């Protein structure tokens, strides 16, 4: 089961949970499953053209998935998937 780190803005979809454990073969499948549990979740992440929105980064462990295979990036047990959106706050 991979662990998904949910950023604060998306926690309103997950009932406030910051970590979700789910098993899937790829990042794309993972998001699909999460969208099943938490409707609207993947709509916040995907650009509708087979990719992730450009102000959001998704990491498998330390590496951004655009440098891997995008949504087809495989995931296995014990992998950590981090969703990192741009944030502008500073004041």
């Amino acid at each position, binding site marked *: 089961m991979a662990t998904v*780190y949910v*950023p*604060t*803005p998306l926690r309103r979809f997950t009932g406030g949970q*910051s*970590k979700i454990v789910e098993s899937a073969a790829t990042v794309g499948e993972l998001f699909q499953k999460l969208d099943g549990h938490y409707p609207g979740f993947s709509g916040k992440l995907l650009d509708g053209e087979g990719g992730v*929105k*450009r*102000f959001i*980064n998704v*990491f498998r462990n*330390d*590496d*951004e998935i655009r*440098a891997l295979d995008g949504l087809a990036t495989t995931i296995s047990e014990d992998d950590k998937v*981090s969703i*990192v*959106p*741009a*944030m*502008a*706050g*500073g*004041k």
Partner: protein
Amino acid sequence: MTRLNRDQLVQLAKSQITEWTPHQLDGRRKAKEAITVVDIRERDEWMQGHIPQSVFIPRGFLELQIEQHQPDRDAPVVIYCAGGVRSALAARNLQEMGYTNVISLIGGFNGWKNASLGFKVPKVLNEEQRIRYSRHTMLQEIGDEGQLKLLESKVLLIGAGGLGSPAALYLAAAGVGQIGIIDYDTVDVSNLQRQVLHGQSDVGRYKVDSAADTLAEINPEVKVIGYKEPITSHNAFEIISGYDVVLNGSDNFPTRYLVNDACQMLGIPLVDASIFMFEGQVTVYQPKHPESAVEGGPCYRCLYPDPPPPGEVPSCAEAGVLGVLPGIVGSIQAIEAIKLLVGFGEPLIGRLLMIDTSDMTFRTLKVNRNTECPVCGDHPTVTELIDYDQFCGLPSSTHAVEPVEANVNGHHAAEKVLA
């Protein structure tokens, strides 16, 4: 036991060691020979001038410290004093430790100067600085040299708010020579929950004025320059150039892209951070400098090629922020700035630090430079500053902004320019 007078002892020592003239030493160095040169005089003599690239170990500490600088017993070690007498005696002490290639400099530092060879007069900490920064200077990674670098360095803060507050406090305390602060805002009561630069009596004052007073109280030596204006494509180069490091603590996307692009184009490292509710992100964008072998890393646009559509990402003003969070994140920015200025440790270049204070996890993720990046990529397409409001899908600012530089030390003359 043989009784020797001073002259006899020196003669004996000189008969047992090797001596070089200043020109011999200079010639060997010019031939790129690796030679450890040790100045064994007293501190005040060293401070008045010494041979470049020499290390300072006063005679009394020579045997105790030489191994830190040259552990190899067969490597050449040249020692010098003022006139060549103390060094001749000291050379014998190193021979007793097994150093086989110890050379005393004939005529010492006076001989070196008389031979018209170059010497260096070090900048030094004064007595008050020596005490004030003693906890820094005792760190080997900083030392007197690192502290002197900090005293001569200039850091620009974008914003004197949540992130800028702790960063400014610690950078001033650390003795950064000049702190520039860009902020056209005034202090509001709702700022005081986290913006620790400002206090109750500052409500209604310009933040840069309040900041200047607070920083002067912490460290009067620091020069604070306030800019009471928004940073825009018109003034960004003028304000940012001349600073050694920029810290971003702004609260909007157009400013973040603008500051990133300007820093990349000027080749100035940017310590970027942002906060939201309980979470923070910190990273360092270091532009490449091939001429000085600085490889550089990714920039803000490598990480976030496009901004989110307006309204997609809520701001702290809309969603809230835990007041202590910017205290942690801004302090981390200050540490990264000090590392970059002094040159030690591993700055967060190519690494994004994610902080979640709700479960108190700190994680670092790898960020790669995008070779296709329009600003820092191999074939940049954005080579001058653009309209960042438009880029971020906001209505363009139409006002012309006159760059106003306000030295906030006692002057409250600059007018607020509304964005």
